[in-house]
């Protein structure tokens, strides 16, 4: 639930003093992302049976989280509201995927 019950316009600290995430931090994240891509391809070439898709998706999710947290500055955001928006969006996407799978997954059960 929207929890920022503070008076709507208390002076919050000035916006442009983002915490100083230095450029090297970005480059490290960038390298991890490239490594993740390479790892995805390598993992896809190994026969993991039914787990191939799961592995690919977990690596992709980790990469997406890295981009969201560091490149899109969710990590340092001074307000929980942005996190709430992201989480609720993912929740509703999750609803769409799982509840439609509730139908397709159980079609052959009769």
């Amino acid at each position, binding site marked *: *639930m929207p929890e920022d019950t503070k008076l*709507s*316009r208390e002076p919050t600290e000035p916006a442009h003093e983002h915490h100083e995430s230095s450029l090297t931090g970005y480059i490290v994240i960038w390298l991890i992302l490239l490594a993740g891509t390479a790892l995805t391809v390598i993992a896809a070439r190994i026969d993991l049976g039914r787990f191939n898709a799961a592995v690919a998706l977990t690596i992709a999710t980790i990469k997406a989280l890295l981009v969201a947290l560091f490149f899109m500055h969710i990590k340092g955001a001074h307000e929980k509201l942005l996190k709430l928006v992201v989480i*609720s969006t993912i929740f*509703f996407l999750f609803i769409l995927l799982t*509840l439609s799978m509730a139908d397709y997954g159980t079609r052959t059960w009769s």
Partner: protein
Amino acid sequence: MSMATATIQPVERENYLNKEYGVGSWLFTTDHKRIALLYLISITFFFFIGGFFALLIRLELLTPASDLVQADTYNKLFTMHGMVMVFFFLIPSIPAVLGNFLVPMMIGAKDLAFPRINLLSWYLYIIGGIMMLHCMLTGGVDTGWTFYTPFSTAYSNTKIVEAGLAIFVTGFSSILTGLNFVVTIHRMRAPGMTWSRLPLFIWAHYATSIIQILGTPVIAITIVLVAAERALHLGIFDPRLGGDPLLFQHLFWFYSHPAVYIMILPSMGVVTEIIACFARKRIFGYSFVAFSSIAIAVFGFLVWAHHMFVAGISVYAALVFSLLSYAVAVPSAVKVFNWTATLYKGSIHYDAPMLYAFGFIGLFTMGGLTGLFLAALGIDVHVTDTYFVIAHFHYIMVGGALMGYLGGLHFWWPKISGRLYPEGWARLAALIVFLGFNLTFFPQFVLGYLGMPRRYADYSHMPEFQVLNVLSTAGATVLGVGYLLPMLYFLWSMRYGKPAPDNPWKAAGLEWMTTSPPTTFNFETEPVVTWEAYNYDEIDSAHKQEVKVVG
């Protein structure tokens, strides 16, 4: 006895209406109040087109034989009635008209967070509207407003791609309005306007905006898929290639069920404000009513396949969605109980808005209860796709959303136009609408259980359905008259109505604390909120000596 006390305006003060004149000042305005009026005009236009189609449908069904129009013309009539009413009237009506006008004022802001995007929303609505009009005039669509595949993708040769793109464009108008509201409510509340002091109208629009934001994109992509399949033969829903027509229904209803909550939630917000004002009482269980709006928005996304119980989904999925559909019924029930409890120990006035609010509670309760019939798997098998469903959703949409919209228009008309509407005519119109509505749609419950399928132009082999259809058509004409009256006397009041004081109903809320009609920036000095929501005890004790006015 009318509560509206009329005072004579000494001098014509500057307000958002007379600040600027000329077409440019309207077509390029970023003032949320002017955009609300632009929406009001365009929505009323589409409402009367949809209503005209509805009258033609009812006229056709007066007689068993299909003798008024050809079969495919009838199919186009109910399709266009559905598409125009759902996408061009019900979804935008309260959020775009009353929401645009009041959300900034109620929270003490000067305008919405993104005024230019607000104007873009109206232009998207108009572009979509023109595309739909062109589609209707050059052939129309005959797939039903639900445009199920594979009929809509492979077997219908009407203009589905054009109608789909019209809805696609108008959908973005709805998304951007939702986005604007959420950001405004979060970021632009006046100092002191905490979440627990927000009017419940704002809570209702916050919940509606969540649905608009997260639901509309899914139907947008579904329309893209249907258009791609028709134009480029991509074949995603085409059973001959292995596509599953049920996937379309899943994606369509994933949006279209929450869309019915987009239509009803703002109406609930309007009715909450009206009941509090005319019963002179704080809303019973404020936080429960507020969180029930949010609960409806969230649960609304979990229940869509109760439209598909007989469509061929698995028995176990039907069980899951039937259970969840009962969960979504609870917040609506809580709201009805809280409205009724608010009247307890109140000081109730019976002005036109209150009559519409009473009508809303009555009809919405019946609509909600019949929803319980449809959510029960055993009964749904018999009554889905019959006139029982038609009656159910018209009780919610016409009985609920439209009554709330009219009630809201009457309640805030003095603030919007600076004029008082004729109270006598308004009460008469409310009564005609209530009676006409029940005469139109109650017989359809019986018709539905008897088994008359929906979307039938010809029931000559089932003459036993004729009596109920005749009753329903009679009701439809009364309803049509009931809807014409408000438009007439609202226009009349713009010219000849008594000038309205700033707070004719002595209502609580920031929008009543500025002039009516308000200035372009709503407030002379930025308001600071120090009182709780619906503080009618403070308002009434301050106005001990009541000004008696013949109304």
